[in-house]
């Protein structure tokens, strides 16, 4: 006897009404995508649950992958046995013995199918008795047991589990539509992307690149960050915008203290164009209230004027420290802190307006036609698709 299944529990998704099926099918698809390279592994659905059939694979590496799939609330290693009293007894004993440190236990039987002749309550007692007689020094504690042996008697088979591993929850990526993440290379924007994905959003990303002032490494950094994000979802398209000319024009033509505000308005205008092209319905940004000049209430009010797309700002109310902790946990921090300049750190006015006004910006913008440069910029956008599997730089292949 051996743990040969992983039982997957949905969190919030279970609360969905009629359209729950769509969520479940998406989750199954996403799980399959993450673990398909393990030979023989299968993902199956049954009423209210999902199972991964291990087929001889080690469970740990698969669990590591599943932990990052949004939509899974928790999972447990499970044994599948026939719906017979003897088999269930044997399975329950195996599950308890696997928990070597346990001193107390309880059994919880759930009968999903009433075809099984013994009622749940009675089955609880039978199994409890069986476990007590076949172990030494372990006692029952129904209130705070070290281990809860859970037995689910289903139509097709009985599944027995003990421990449970908490996962990330959220909704399956792809169930909430697409959003375009404004990705800078700093600490905040990847975290914002991660949190949006947690709500079922599928991401594309946009990055503003200002060569030769910013380096290839700044761009690479953004691609690396994107790749880390793919761990939690699917492949992500990154749109790299050649921003230098437009940025220079803004700083040449506009009053210095308003240049940053106008630059950010341009970024939103260009982002909206990508959204139109790619059929994306929202933007996601790492903005956070009060962190820097462009993130004051007045600034956001002024910048937001140029788009009526919803802007998802998952970090809006977070402390910097909270954001750093998430970025460390999801693996983007180390990359984010690499010290390369990006377009937002190179062109910084000496004293940017922290309280810009819409009327003033509109007045300044009306004095210069940015359209030709903006169109040229949009034409020059380079789109790169990043997948979870690293495609190694060809010139490194022989070396490693």
């Amino acid at each position: 006897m051996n743990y040969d299944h992983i039982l997957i529990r949905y969190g919030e998704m279970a609360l969905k009404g009629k359209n729950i099926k769509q969520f479940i099918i998406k989750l199954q698809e996403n799980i399959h995508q993450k673990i398909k390279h393990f030979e023989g592994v299968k993902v199956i659905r049954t009423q209210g649950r999902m199972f991964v059939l291990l087929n001889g694979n080690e469970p740990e590496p698969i669990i590591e992958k599943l932990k990052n799939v949004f939509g899974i609330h928790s999972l447990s290693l499970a044994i599948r046995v026939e719906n017979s009293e003897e088999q269930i007894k044997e399975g329950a004993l195996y599950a308890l013995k696997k928990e070597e440190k346990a001193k107390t236990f309880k059994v919880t039987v759930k009968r999903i199918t009433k075809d099984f002749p013994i009622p749940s309550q009675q089955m609880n007692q039978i199994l409890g008795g069986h476990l007590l007689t076949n172990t030494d020094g372990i006692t029952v504690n129904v209130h705070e047991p070290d281990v809860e042996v859970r037995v689910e008697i289903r139509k097709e088979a009985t599944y027995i589990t003990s421990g449970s591993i908490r996962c990330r929850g959220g909704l399956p990526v792809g169930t909430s539509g697409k959003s375009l993440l404004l990705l800078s290379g700093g600490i905040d924007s990847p975290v914002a992307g991660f949190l949006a994905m947690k709500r079922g959003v599928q991401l594309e990303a946009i990055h503003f690149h200002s060569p030769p002032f910013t380096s290839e490494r700044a761009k690479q950094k953004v691609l690396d960050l994107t790749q880390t994000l793919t761990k939690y979802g699917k492949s992500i398209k990154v749109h790299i915008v050649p921003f230098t000319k437009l940025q220079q024009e803004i700083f040449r033509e506009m009053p210095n203290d308003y240049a940053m505000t106008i630059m950010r308005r341009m970024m939103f205008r260009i982002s909206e164009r990508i959204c139109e092209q790619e059929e994306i319905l929202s933007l996601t940004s790492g903005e956070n209230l009060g962190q820097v000049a462009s993130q004051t209430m007045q600034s956001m009010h002024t910048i937001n004027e140029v788009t009526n797309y919803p802007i998802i700002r998952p970090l809006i109310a977070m402390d910097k420290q909270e954001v750093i902790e998430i970025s460390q946990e999801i693996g983007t921090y180390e990359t984010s802190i690499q010290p390369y300049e990006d377009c937002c750190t190179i062109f910084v006015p000496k004293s940017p307006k922290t309280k810009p006004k819409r009327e003033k910006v509109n007045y300044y913008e009306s004095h210069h036609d940015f359209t030709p440069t903006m169109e040229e910029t949009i034409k020059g956008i380079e789109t790169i698709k990043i997948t979870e599997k690293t495609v190694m730089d060809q010139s490194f292949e022989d070396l490693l």
Partner: protein
Amino acid sequence: MIYLDNSATTQPKEEVIQSFQLASSQFFANPSSIHPLGGRVEKLLFTAKQQVAETLGVRREEIIFTSGGTEGNNTAIKGIALEHEQRGRHIITTEAEHPSIYDTCISLKKLGFRITFLPIDENGLVSVEQVENAIESDTILITMMYVNNEIGTIQPIEAIGNMLKQYPKVFFHVDAVQALGKVPLKLSDSGIDLCTFSGHKIHGLKGTGMLYVEKTTTLFPLMHGGNQEFGVRSGTENVAGAVSFVKALRLVMEQFKQEKQHLIHLNEVLREGLSKLEDIVIHSPSHGAPHIVNFSVLGVKPEVIIHTLSEKDIYISTKSACSSKELDESRILIACGKSHEEAISGLRVSFSYNNTVAEVEQFLKELHTAIEQYKEALG
């Protein structure tokens, strides 16, 4: 040539040398330079770490490239001791350690640390209970090898790691230099905080290696400077060395997956052959690592056998190469409770995946001849 001294060093693979050559000539820039050439080299180093992380199932930030086993062990032991001495000054190790652990621990005595050297049994083993019983309130580190370099004993690292999960204040350092690619190794969630590897034992180059440092573990660096390798090992990275190490690691792990039975088979052939010869005592435990067999030929000086075999182009060693210039008895064999005679006459045969059954048979034949000759000469 029949080379059976693979625990001392292995022959570098052609691919590994090429990798070193290519990386040295094409990716020579300093990875810390901010120009694009530097960027390319940094990217290469980054990719190399990514590959190690995937191969060993750890995080990229948990990998520090080093110059090999001795540096790895010193960085780990002194690094923990000096960083965490406020917490305690007691370190536990065993009597079976390689000098780079044993002597490092002794050196810390001068700085006021207390060291417990756990005794080993006749098979070279320490038990989980022994380790647990030795833990005191001020213990900060347990440091030991996974596979013994002289006799191949496999210590119960997994069980010790699991036990130590109950002692979160005690760091656990494992020297896996002789274990890598020969026995199973799990790092993440294993209770192991630090783990040493060396390149030249896995067909890589001398002067290359790696230290695994679990992400929440902090170390006092042996070398301060430009903050390379997360500040744990400053100094311009040996990029070509690191890259060649990663290549060697990948190749040996593939071999381990596919060919581990081969080493076990060679071990069986050798043991069976030795058992047919007279006056031979095998010191290696029967459940040890498959690639190391240590034995004595009673009444024959080990050096004589080594020289006689060398004339036939067959190479084995006495004790470990690192200490074989000392003329005394083997500290490890004495600790296993062997007699003085046995402890000064240990011979070590160590395999790589490249060795063949025919080579082992040839070795056995020549060993037999050498023993006969010696006895005849002595009358």
